[in-house]
């Protein structure tokens, strides 16, 4: 008789398969851990830190931390949620997020996680960075004001599309998204609206043109249910080229 290995998360037993991380195992079991830079079809990245948990007393990123049998994980504690609220406030402060006018409102993971954690104040003085909008491409536009630097578009373009359309340059607070063209314009890259990279952005940076506000308010993914009730939607799966429309 063989029983699959398990760990406990806030007292609940979570089974896992060899090689899974804590976040992957939890989402597979339909248990939610807040996350932003993780995507079910990609190798975890570990940069947003919103998934920070305590595993056997140690703060680690749930998305990259390997699950181990018998591990004791704390997740939905006030201490951790407080930490996550601060991280979300930091991301809002760092970019320019004007949700009411953003087409991705209601679809946006940053907004959804913010609502879910009840982030009610700005917390920090906003940076108001000057970031350009790139509308050069006929099918796709980039509003870099909203970029949270999760690198999902970079990973999708590298690993699935094989095009290397996106990359990062600068460092520290000067880190920013770049595209693969000498001119620096999206129009001069190989980007196509059908690329995987066009559909992975968790926030409203990479948007398809001629398709704005398609889903009516009230029916958008996070209008229906808070993100914390949709854990299974993020269970790891192999990369698919076309996502069903949300």
């Amino acid at each position, binding site marked *: 008789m063989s029983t699959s290995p398990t760990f406990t998360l806030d007292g609940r037993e979570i089974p896992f398969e060899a090689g899974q991380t804590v976040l992957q195992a939890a989402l597979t079991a339909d248990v939610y851990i807040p996350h932003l830079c993780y995507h079910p079809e990609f190798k975890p990245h570990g*940069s947003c830190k919103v998934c920070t948990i305590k595993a056997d007393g140690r*703060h680690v990123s749930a998305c990259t931390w390997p699950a181990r049998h018998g591990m004791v994980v704390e997740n939905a504690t006030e201490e951790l949620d407080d930490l996550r609220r601060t991280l979300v406030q*930091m991301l809002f402060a760092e970019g320019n997020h004007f949700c009411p006018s953003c087409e991705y409102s209601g679809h946006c993971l940053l907004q959804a996680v913010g609502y879910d954690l009840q982030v009610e104040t700005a917390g920090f003085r906003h940076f108001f960075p000057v970031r350009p909008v790139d509308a050069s491409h006929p099918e796709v536009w980039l509003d870099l004001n909203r970029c949270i630097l999760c690198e999902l578009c970079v990973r999708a373009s590298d690993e699935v599309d094989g095009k290397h359309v996106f990359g990062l340059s600068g*460092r*520290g607070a000067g880190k920013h998204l770049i595209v*693969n063209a000498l001119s620096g314009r999206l129009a001069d890259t190989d980007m196509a609206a059908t690329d995987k990279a066009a559909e992975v952005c968790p926030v409203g940076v990479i948007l398809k043109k001629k398709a704005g506000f398609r889903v009516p308010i009230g029916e958008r993914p996070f209008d229906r249910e808070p993100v914390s009730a949709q854990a299974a939607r993020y269970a790891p799966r192999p990369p698919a080229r076309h996502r069903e429309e949300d």
Partner: protein
Amino acid sequence: MSIASPAPQPAAALGAILERHDRRPEQLLQILREVQEHLGHVSDDIQAHIARELHLPLTRVRGVVGFYAFLSATPWGRYRVLFSDNITDRMQGNMDLLDHLCRRLLLEPGHPSEDGLVSVDTTSCTGLCDQGPGLLVNGRAIPAISRERLDLIAELILEGRPVTAWPAELFAIVDNVCRADMVLDNDLDPGDAVRAALARGDMSQVEQAANTRSWREANVAPPQGPLATLNEIRSANLRGRGGAGFTTAYKWESCRNAQGEQRYVVCNADEGEPGTFKDRVLLASHADLVFEGMTVCAYVVGAGRGFLYLRGEYRYLLGALEETLARRRRDHLLGRDILGTPGFSFDIEIHVGAGAYVCGEESALIESLEGKRGIPRNRPPYPVTHGYLQRPTTVNNVETFCAAALIAAHGGDWYRATGTPKSAGTKLMSVAGDCARPGIYEVPFGTTVAELLAMSGAEHTQAVQISGPSGTCIGPDEFERRIAFEDLATAGAFTVFDESRDMFEVARNYAHFFAHESCGFCTPCRVGTTILAATMDKIHDGHGTPYDLEEIATLDRVLNQSAHCGLGHTSCNPTLDTIKRFRPAYELHLKDLDFEPAFDLDGALRRARQMTGRDDPGAHLTTEPES
């Protein structure tokens, strides 16, 4: 060569550089660094050319150029002057000196002169704190900057004399060894340690090491060869000198037991922690000992290739280091079948960094060695199993390798006899700041802070920053504490502040250091260090309130709990330590008000005043109560 010969053609220089590096993507950073050195910048067109030649996307090349402080896509001028901006440089008046030079050259800091001749700016600590203030001209280090020396430098620049033809005495950097012990006074000749390691037994276990899970299982006979030396390292109780104090024998053993067809030994000579300069002295005057330790390590773990990752600021040591390597190859201390031992082959390549403190973090260092942006990796897996090119890799500090060489030569018992029971051997301390005799003090572990202060002639000491900004700041009530892993663990910086110093300004300088050096990978550090630096500036400008101190405590918690690497974890240390121990220094800068709007009304009008050229009272707004 005739005087009329044309300047080197960019294309030819570029071709030669690409050729020398075999157009390998792992060499990207080295290629870019050399192009920068030759041409003064790496233009967009050249970046595109390099991308094509290396079969890399342009984004990859641009990402690297944008990451390292010593690379740039636009020209910085034929002369690039960078003033070291550590707190010790500040204390020695580097800002006045920078102003002085800018006035002589008629330019503003940060902006190249109109004729493209020269630019002047600041950079993170250049490791010359014992003979500061320091600066770099086109990457070459100049110590002990004074007005007189700057006047000479200004003349040389205006005259257009190539830096290679500047008077040698400008570049004379001394060791300043004030106390030597087992490492700095070592009696080893090149090859002694390697010979001693080889004499402990034959090579039969080198091959076995590679593919057995544990040498303990595979070998019942008393340890010979590499294992015998590993045992000496273990019994010496050697711990890493790079900061974390990891047990060296355990690291070497894990690397030796890891599966992989090729293993690597990496010497971490990035020495970026402000106030640390002991590796500079080891590399300048004891390079054989460093390479010896690396070779012993290669023998123990079964590595065939090694790298020395030299921080860009120490570029001036490159020539001498390469010569030492060449001599060691001639003496069969490197290369194939070292000292005639069949199968023991190892060679060392030097990679030069390009201005990024985070590359001292071992996994970021490995990324940098692979020619990428220096972003710390997700761990596990650790470098001992998945390091350079995902193969088993041992990374150690320069000083750790020196100690390892001594242990290989003299044995673990001999080594352990110095120091404390928990901290064996000696520690090289980089003493700088307010003391009569700054320099290198090699002291046995267990030496107290007070003893070091007395040795270096420090008086009226208010505080000592141990191990740089990522370490601990202590006041006089703690000066009886000991330099040791069990008390004050340190990578070697020992920066002294006397009673005349404003400890708030010390912390503010360090806050800017972290914000400047954050790699930007993770949210807490990228955003948190920026907010911290801005908050410290706000307090400095007289707009701080107790609320800001609370915010700093929040930032500290967030960084500690969630940052991706040690840089973020420790970035609030100097601020918190100084708030805890020197609160009055902060309170002097704070407003009495409980709350001060973050928005500065008068400050917001600054641009308008500049544009209109007005500065009369009517052009100012005030939130101060009328008195």
